[in-house]
């Protein structure tokens, strides 16, 4: 197996062709890139951009608001992945602005690490309405589908905020100001869905693409691959995580996703609506749809694009338009202890990852 050092020297040996922007769309990739310091060892001409790889960051503000209101006013037990609890909504400071604050105000809010725990909580509390606030990409939505297919009790409903990753990438590449040169294809999304759904990057946009795993050597192999594809003018969809990503992904998981969910247009926080990028429960699983079960708590009026907190630049961070340190709040008004926007809350948010890997604000901001 070729090690990280070898890939790095191959990258350095490639002739330089001017600046190259390579986007990743996975919080796990960004973590490895940031924590192993890949940006500092690559040639200056190679820019690694963190794109929309954080499902918590793009979860619509109106959905977080609805979850908070459900927990506060309906007496439901609200369960969510731990990352969701501190995500703030746009309300004045005196109001309840996050699930964590709702919990402090007496609401029954619980963090879970798996959809199975949501099912188990519903089974243990048969007299309670349990709402599972489920944000996530394909890798998380397949387990959500499985948990419903395995048999969920009637007192469990799901407030679905799942998203498909590839439509957001397609939208970015279609945007007029896109200046991306290559894509690192997300490793575990592809483990579930297969590699084929990323072929549009090559076929429709003529850009190099390579799927990567989560070790530095796998990411460097993918970076080398796209640089070389670009150099040779022959882009293709490479698989640098072939031991785990099979061409057809995980067929059982894909089948379960299809049986439980339809695909619908969906709003992305900070980005706006993207066609065919969200999930909706199909019959008969729609009896577990929290939006149908609690229609009074749907807040369609809150829906609007670009709805990050005031002064927060998460929208441009999510789209890879700026690095976290370029936001004037980063590390000053916005820190992991006191986050303003979702990108500093989630372990997969580019700001949180940047902070954790030691990136500090430029002195000019002080």
């Amino acid at each position: 197996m070729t090690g990280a050092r070898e890939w790095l020297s191959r990258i350095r040996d490639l002739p330089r062709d001017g600046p190259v922007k390579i986007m990743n769309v996975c919080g796990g990739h960004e973590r490895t890139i940031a924590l192993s310091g890949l940006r500092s060892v690559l040639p200056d001409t190679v820019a690694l951009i963190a794109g929309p790889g954080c499902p918590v960051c793009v979860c619509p503000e109106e959905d977080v608001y609805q979850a908070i209101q459900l927990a506060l006013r309906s007496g439901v037990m609200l369960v969510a992945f731990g990352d969701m609890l501190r995500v703030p909504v746009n309300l004045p400071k005196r109001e309840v602005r996050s699930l964590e604050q709702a919990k402090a105000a007496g609401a029954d809010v619980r963090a879970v690490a798996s959809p199975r725990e949501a099912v188990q909580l519903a089974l243990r509390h048969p007299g309670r309405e349990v709402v599972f606030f489920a944000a996530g990409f394909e890798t998380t939505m397949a387990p959500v589908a499985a948990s419903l297919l395995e048999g969920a009790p009637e007192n469990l409903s799901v407030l679905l905020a799942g998203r498909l990753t590839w439509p957001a990438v397609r939208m970015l590449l279609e945007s007029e100001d896109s200046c991306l040169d290559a894509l690192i294809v997300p490793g575990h999304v592809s483990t579930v869905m297969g590699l084929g759904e990323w072929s549009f990057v090559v076929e429709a946009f003529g850009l190099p693409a390579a799927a990567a795993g989560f070790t530095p050597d796998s990411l460097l192999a993918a970076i080398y691959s796209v640089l070389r594809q670009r150099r040779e003018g022959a882009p293709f969809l490479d698989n640098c995580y072939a031991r785990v990503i099979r061409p057809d992904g995980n067929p059982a998981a894909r089948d379960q996703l299809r049986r439980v969910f339809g695909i619908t247009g969906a709003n992305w926080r900070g980005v706006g609506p993207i066609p065919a990028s969200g999930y909706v429960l199909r019959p008969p699983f729609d009896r577990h749809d929290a939006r149908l079960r609690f229609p009074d708590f749907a807040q369609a009026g809150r829906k609007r694009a670009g709805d990050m907190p005031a002064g927060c630049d998460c929208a441009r961070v999510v789209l890879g338009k700026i690095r976290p340190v370029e936001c004037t709040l980063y590390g000053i008004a916005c820190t992991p202890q006191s986050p303003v926007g979702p990108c500093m809350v989630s372990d997969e948010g580019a700001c949180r990852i940047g902070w954790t890997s030691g990136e500090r604000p430029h002195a000019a901001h002080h």
Partner: protein
Amino acid sequence: MCLAIPMEISRIDGYTARCTAKGIARDVSLFLMQGEPLAVGDFVMVHVGYAIQRVSPEDARSSWELFDEMLAAENGRA
């Protein structure tokens, strides 16, 4: 949330497997692995409590080493 971790299967009971990684044991669902025969001693990639794919023992070990390094990096800087 999206971070998947390789684990070794130590017991299987229906769709539930007892899995271990570096001394930590968890119950993991094999519901998404239907059609992929799995046995005690096999390694799977686990995401939010569900096995999503089989992995080799070598890949599992290199991922564990990486997690150790990243945790050390985080603890040193955070």
